């Protein structure tokens, strides 16, 4: 099995310490986390982690099971890049005079869909939302013109074929889940998207 980028989406309770509990699942196995984002989810009071790693599917599946095993984790899904819509946000700080003088730079920024967030006499901050390759290329492009600062956010991702968590959550509320919620479903989807 070959390694590729997987995005893990974890729905959790909002609990101090859970971030650590999840993070050490990766560090214990010496697995590098490419990006990690925590945010609210579509459901009030439910937290959503988005974690990107580069691993084989077998490893990712096992990691998801370890994550779901944590008491405060509701659910963990993993997806390939084809199965999600995703974005990262990048900020670039460049000297204002260069942009003003070099027409080329302005054109380039436009080409990459950069938006000016702050314009000051001494510097300008641009923002680009996109995939890693896009934001990466713009670094290369801007470097010769004196890129002062660069930062990129973690990935956030939407799962294309997900119905969201509202309905799923209902099944967690009851002690005995109803017939429509077959928790054991993942066993029959051993090779597919992880969902317990």
């Amino acid at each position, binding site marked *: 099995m070959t390694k590729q980028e997987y995005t893990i989406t974890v729905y959790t309770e909002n609990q101090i*310490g859970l971030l650590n*509990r999840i993070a050490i699942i990766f560090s214990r196995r010496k697995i590098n986390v490419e990006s990690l984002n925590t945010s609210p989810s579509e459901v009030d009071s439910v937290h959503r982690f988005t974690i990107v790693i580069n691993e084989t599917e077998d490893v990712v*599946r096992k990691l998801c099971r370890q994550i779901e095993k944590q*008491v405060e984790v509701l659910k963990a899904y993993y997806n390939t890049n084809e199965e999600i819509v995703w974005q990262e946000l990048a900020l670039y700080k460049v000297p204002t005079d260069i942009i003003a003088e070099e027409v080329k730079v302005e054109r380039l920024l436009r080409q990459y869909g950069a938006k000016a967030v702050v314009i000051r006499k001494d510097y300008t901050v641009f923002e680009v939302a996109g995939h890693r390759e896009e934001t990466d290329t713009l670094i290369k492009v801007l470097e010769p013109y004196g890129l002062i600062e660069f930062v990129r956010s973690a990935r956030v991702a939407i799962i294309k074929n997900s119905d969201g968590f509202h309905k799923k959550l209902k099944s*967690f509320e009851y002690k005995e889940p109803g017939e429509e919620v077959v928790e*054991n479903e993942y*066993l029959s989807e051993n090779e597919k998207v992880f969902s317990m």
Partner: protein
Amino acid sequence: MDTLELTKKEKTATATENISGSVAVLRALIAENVETIFGYPGGAIMPIYDALYDYHDKLKHILVRHEQGAIHAAQGFARVSGRTGVVFATSGPGATNLVTGLADAMIDSTPVVCITGQVFAHLLGTDAFQETDVINITTPVTKWNYQVTDANEIPHVLAKAFYIAGSGRPGPVVIDITKNAQLQLFEFKGYEKCEHIRSYRPKPIVRKEYIEKAAQLINEAERPFVIFGQGVILGKAEKEFQKFIEKSGIPAAWTIMGMSAIPTDHPLGVGMLGMHGNYGPNVLTNECDVLIAVGMRFDDRVTGRLDKYAKQAKVIHLDIDPAEIDKNVKTTVSVWGDCKETLPLLTELVEQKVYPQWLQKFKDCMEKEEVKCIKPELTPNNEVLTMGEVIDILNRLTKGEAVIVTDVGQHQMVACRYAKYNNSKSNITSGGLGTMGYALPAAIGAYYGAPDRPIIAIIGDGGMQMTIQELGTIMQFKPNVNIIILNNNFLGMVRQWQELFHQHRYSFVDIQSPDFVQVAKGYGIEGRSVCKRDELKNALSEMLNSKDSYLVEVMVGKENNVFPMVPQGRGVAEIVLGKDEV
């Protein structure tokens, strides 16, 4: 009084009461039917100990001599009784002393609730006296942990703690309570047991189609083989398991943790798996056509080299923890669920069968092992005492009724290989972590978990010195614990490896011991040392007949080895029966 009644009573009697967080902790324990606490006081847990002063008629507190002793005792208590063990410890060093036991309880799925004191909430993160980040230190070795800074949380959090520790795949829980929360008065609205946490599903709904698939594989099998672990005991499914193997007629071998779930002399019981397990179960793992794993996790000490493990077999795995399924061994059919529920369903669908030829293979293997390993161990032809003959005499004296608690090393393997058991929950040992120092405190805890059963701790001369201070606990609280030290004057298991795999280079394994009998005497515990065969039975009888704890030291052969053995890095079928084969 049953729990429900008690809970109700607690509720009505205290509906509008203002109590301290500390009292709330103790009320929670009482509501959870806790009778015994193993602990050690200190600054940050003083309010709880102060409250305990008024509760000593309802809660027994065993003052250990080191917090590691407290948690191992709680583990021994839990393992022998099937109930959750409870520990009190103070902040900082008190809490960090628990870490080894937490790791042990985590890997061996033992239900324990540890309550640790913590500095005042306003001092958190200031490097206050005896402040350590207990939550983060214990996160990797707990099933759940939580820090309480407000007394109002205590009833609810403790209810969760007991629910989580004891349900699903059990494990240790740490509740860290800041001193202000222990002192705080709050309106106690009663204690309600926790029965549901929405993000936590201790066991799934059983899917029948997997049971059907499993049954079909079993019914078509010619050489099926059952291997089982502690899951059978933790699931309290011993009867269900026995029915399953008896109807299906399938030979069954236990892991070290599954041992005693069925009587050791059960006609279908073919012995122990693993590195020092029996020859047949290891070799025939690689000859069966369907391997049925029940409540076990394919630890590397059981599987040996994975790429040489049961490659020919279709694998059925019954487990309550989905993270174990397909973790080490890829299954053909996985039955996720509580084996108390899944086994009867499976039993219903399997055909009544016998496999005389297949079973004969196990017997043939046993004969081979008998000649090369068992006979020389149990009936040696020279005057050097062996560990095996000690166990053999114990078997005859206790008739399989004792609880045997072992430490870690050669004596552990020998005890587990040769001890006979009639009852479940009788073999208490540190399986997953291999924690030296486990046995003495665990045996103390086991006594409180099963005060009417003979408790025998079997310990090496090395391990005894790791928690020897718990003799003080025995002196003070007088649990009846039989202590056997199998003294080979070496860190035996490490010496064995150095002999076999490091060209006999004995590097720091010649450990010196104190006069154990004298040490015991210092603690007011009777004992004697035995170095002759004809004294052995007498000494062990004396020990077992003594109403108080008693220590027997047996001087055994210095350089005896434990065989069979699956050398590290080899497949189970490459198990060796003696030094000449290594």
